[in-house]
């Protein structure tokens, strides 16, 4: 994954930032924050780089969804053994 700071997406929001970029006005002053960077909704105060549309490769999402599919597949096979192999066919027609 490639990423560069301060790309076309605008300035990086910092607690002291003053740029009204497309990400909106600056986030609150750290003085008003009870635990630095963790005023509710201030996830972007921890941003260290901008990643634009073309630079973003959601490979982590692919991994998570693959894990999900493996679980579904394994449970499906497990269900077959538990519910059907020992009994007669379930008639639906």
């Amino acid at each position: 994954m490639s990423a560069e700071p301060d790309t076309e997406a605008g300035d990086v929001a910092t607690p002291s930032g003053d740029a009204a970029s497309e990400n909106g006005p600056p986030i609150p002053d750290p003085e008003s924050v009870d635990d630095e960077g963790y005023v509710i909704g201030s996830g972007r105060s921890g941003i260290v780089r901008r990643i634009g549309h073309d630079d973003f490769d959601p490979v982590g999402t692919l991994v998570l969804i693959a894990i999900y599919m493996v679980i579904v597949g394994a449970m499906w096979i497990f269900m077959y053994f538990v519910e059907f192999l020992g009994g007669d066919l379930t008639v639906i027609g």
Partner: protein
Amino acid sequence: MATFVDKFPDEAKVVQASFAVAFIALGIGALFGLIQALHRTNVLRVIDSVDYYTLLTAHGVLLALVFTIFFLVGLFTWAVTRSFGRALPDIRLTWAWFGLMTTGTVLATVAIVAGLFPQIPMSADVLYTFYAPLQAHPIFYIGLAMFIIGTWMAGADWFLAYREWRGENPDSRIPLQAFMVLTTMIMWYVSTLGVAVSVVFFLIPWSLGLIETVNPLLTRTLFWYFGHPVVYFWLMPAYLLWYTVLPKLAGGRLFSDPLARVVFVLFVLLSTPVGIHHQYVDPGIAEGFKFIAMTNTMFLLLPSLLTAFTVVASVEHGARQRGGEGYLSWLGALPWRDPAFAGMALAGLMFAAGGFSGMINAGMNINYLVHNTLWVPGHFHMTVGTAVALTMMAGTYWLLPQLTGKAVYSRPIGLLQVIMWFIGMVFMSNAMHRAGLFGVPRRTAEPQYQNFDFVAAVGSVGEIRMQIAFGSLLLFLSVVLFLFNVAATWADDRVDTPVDDTIPEPLSPSSGAPLVLDNLALWTGIAVLLVVLAYTLPLASIVNDAGLLGGSPTFPVTVSLEWVVDVTVGALGNLSLDSLAGVAPADAVADLVREVRR
């Protein structure tokens, strides 16, 4: 820094009022939930088992309908106002629907809770599904009808806002949040038609004595015509928050605006023609119709899987911008100490698990194994009970400051509360699923039987009961903490910058979405067509079979038990014993009923 309450003070009041009603319902419903869980697990029985069904009805109605839908109307009012950037057309209309919904809620709740007091000749122990021939007091049905009509007026309010905005912005794309609201309401209009017909034309006249009988299969089918889309009506506010707010909370941007629109359009099309999958074991509906409903249901997995991709990718974008690296270690870069983020992310995780049991429920032959068992409440406590409810609570931590101008009272309590909910639900829901596999029934005050034991494949029934009781206790304490935090926030003083309320642009903006996605009339037309295709023949068959009004005796839960016993004994007496050879003799059952009566 001006936030929502400064820009739209009138609308902020309506949203606050809606949230207040939602949270009161949440508190009462959660208390009743705890009492039920302790009762049916035989840990602590403070109520009579007959009253269990009163509390169960109240729990279902107050949480599944009142809490979720009042939160929804508040959230949607916020979303429409915010995304159109203009005040609602007429705030009197807004207060009118709020008033009507609240009045309806109070009437229905009074009818239910009156069941706890024998001296009041009123009750509505018909459970959340209000299946005929169980009959509630008329004001229960009238209250429900007012509630539904109130939501219709709310939808009209938002569509009027859309018309005004469209007049001034003829060529703009509908803002994403408003698009989500409008499509959800189209789905709601199509689907509530079923419950409106059931309640207004059958159940209200029947409870008032204007007609003597109803066709239970017809009213039940009309209920489920509405009963499945209503789960998406609960879920769509959570989706709205996951798509438009969660990426921002994670420090990222929504991955794709067009994909979000596709998902909402799919829900308009597919939510309603699937209701029969709740009636897989209903003997009056032919298997073929059930099979069609199952096929539609499997298609309905598609928008949820699309959502899994889009929302997770958006959150990953936030994590990468916050410095996250690797295949899985990026998860650690997310703002887990923010209760709004953590709550929504955990809700999403639980929804993924709910998808597993949902797929089991959806399959017709597998459904037979778990139907009417505790598995099913286990499933919907993961979906509506966590994916929706936890997202709403987490969202409140971000929304309430915008609506009040006050910072959340305590972030650590908020964080503790959302984690407690998640852990409590892991215990309770997992145990409920397992109990369902052993065959433990749902909707039962005392699931213990003489000369019969449930066989546990793994663990023991006692262990499962303890898990359910412990989980429900954690869930209740979580609600108490939530309500405390919210009340303390409300009571606090205003501050200059209560919250960071900006929502960044999506990575892939709406300009890339095909124009046809915004053609609401087209999607409405197709949705209606699919409903006609899926429901005409089954409904015609039900009416042909037993007539519009049927012939079933009435079981009013508004009067004494004696009457019900008489009807039951009479009905058992008419059964042919020949057809029951080898089965538990009807006489024995009749004797038992007589004994209960004594």
